[in-house]
């Protein structure tokens, strides 16, 4: 059963078409990777799915429901969680409070009920020691972890991750992969935009390639990666 389905979704900013007639389905429980050159429209695609940006045309269905016109808040409440590529923490709130906002509002629960859950997520994302620090004081890496942690706190059915592995050391990267695999293993559907290919391919089952807002490939990661077209477009390096 497909949990998310896009049909002919398009979006332009002025004269620039950033999403061009994109159609694809994501199955329940799947992990989908998205790759594509800078500016290909990957983040915009996320924004369209989460409702931070409204589509110019086409439709988006989540769990069979048409959510094309739903607000970002509504989509969060029905189970779409996300991280931002450029981390957007609530800077004046502490790390723990950042999660608390997400857990109490994203799941409509009281603070007391979600407390241990939030602490658990902080432990898993290795932010627990920074729990009481204002998020504005975090380093880039910690901010990225916070993005992931906050998205997890809303307990999404579909989790969208936008470049959270960039700049990690190998050890950190492995830890991140474990965390994501763990989330995935709990039945959460994942869509992950990532330039760090080895990390991506070690988690995802399918790979989507985006170029100039168009879906130019979707399928088994190895096959996709092997295609010469993708290698050229994406890496820009002749292999």
């Amino acid at each position, binding site marked *: 059963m497909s949990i998310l389905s896009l049909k002919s979704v398009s979006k332009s900013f002025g004269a620039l078409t950033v999403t061009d007639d994109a159609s694809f389905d994501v199955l329940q429980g799947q992990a989908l990777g998205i790759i594509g050159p800078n500016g290909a429209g990957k983040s915009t695609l996320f924004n369209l799915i989460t409702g931070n940006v409204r589509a110019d045309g086409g439709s988006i269905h989540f769990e069979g429901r048409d959510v094309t016109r739903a607000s970002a*808040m509504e989509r969060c409440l029905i189970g779409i969680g996300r991280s931002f590529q450029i981390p*957007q923490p*609530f800077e004046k709130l502490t790390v723990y409070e950042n999660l608390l906002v997400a857990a109490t509002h994203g799941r409509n629960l009281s603070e007391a009920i979600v407390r241990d859950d939030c602490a658990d997520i902080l*432990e898993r994302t290795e932010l627990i020691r920074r*729990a009481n620090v204002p998020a504005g004081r975090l380093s880039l890496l910690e901010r990225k972890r916070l993005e992931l942690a906050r998205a997890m706190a809303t307990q999404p059915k579909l989790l969208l991750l936008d470049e959270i592995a960039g700049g990690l050391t190998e050890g950190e990267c492995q830890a991140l992969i474990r965390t994501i695999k763990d989330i995935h293993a709990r039945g959460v559907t994942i869509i992950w935009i990532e330039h760090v290919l080895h990390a991506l391919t070690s988690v995802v089952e399918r790979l989507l390639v985006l170029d100039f807002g168009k879906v130019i490939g979707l399928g088994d990661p190895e096959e996709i990666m092997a295609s010469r077209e993708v290698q050229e477009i994406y890496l820009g390096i002749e292999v």
Partner: protein
Amino acid sequence: MAYSVTTQTPASRIAAIAGVILISLLIALPFFAGRGTIQDMFFILTMLVLAQFWNLLAGYGGLVSIGQQAFVGTGAYALFGVVILWGVDPVPAIFCAGIAALVIAVPTAFFAFRLNGAYFAIGTWVIAEVVRLLVAQWKMLGGGTGTSLPRDATRDMWFIESIESTLGLRSAAARDVLAYWLALVLALATIGGIYWLLRTRRGLALAAVRDNTEAAKSVGVDAGRMKWIVFLTSAFGTGLAGGLIYMQKARISPDAAFSVTDWTAYVIFIVVIGGIGTIEGPIIGVLVFFALQTLLADFGSWYLMTLGVLAVVVMLVAPRGLWGLLSEQTGLHLFPIRRRLTGGKLASSEE
């Protein structure tokens, strides 16, 4: 392994104890203070209420309104209306004042929320003007001339008799005491209510929306509803304060009740001087404002000029206000809202 959450700090515990003592003192004030003090305190408390609600609106909700006089005026006129035309006792009529302001706030919000930033500010101002002009057409309450509360109504207010006999006061002084106690209740309820709101998950959401609206929406915060809650709450509270202020004045006219200077500009001044976005700020601000007024009011235009210049200077030198300066230096919070996670893995190594 168990985690727990606390918002208290040692400073806040001391503050809480001091607060309880202060509140007891304030309640007992009429038993030992003169009328002058009681009236000054009434002024301070009602301005504080207005300031807290404007602060809630602008400091926490990001809604910079310059039309709060619409709610003061509406509340005040509603009080006069139900007292004069329906013969309601002024004390319960204060509640009607709040309700009336709330009723006006709904269409106001519907309109003003279509506007952003500076447009919102000016939109609220124009709406306040519209309400003023409409009220000025209300001939039964004197139109542009204004009207006074009937003496019978103010003499026989609820509680007056018992205050007169308990404190042994003349009726005018008893009315002051009653108004003071009502203002005290309103101010405490306002501060308590706002503090409570900030400590609930809605308060957390307010802070999140203020920091980053897009991200807040993406974690399920209903930013639109937060705006409504904040706007309606502050309209209601401002209306209550308006009713109470004019119950005490006993005389009203549209120009006075809808004065942008008295009910919005001075209030903004109080909040900004004290420190916007904090509960402590308006408290400090109102004390400074009162001190200035007491010292300088007899200098007429020089007083106002000083006030204007001071507003400019504070905004440039200390944009976070006096409390902002103080808490930056000392980390002091009298009304802490930061939730600190303790226990579990944090037990051994507190950051």
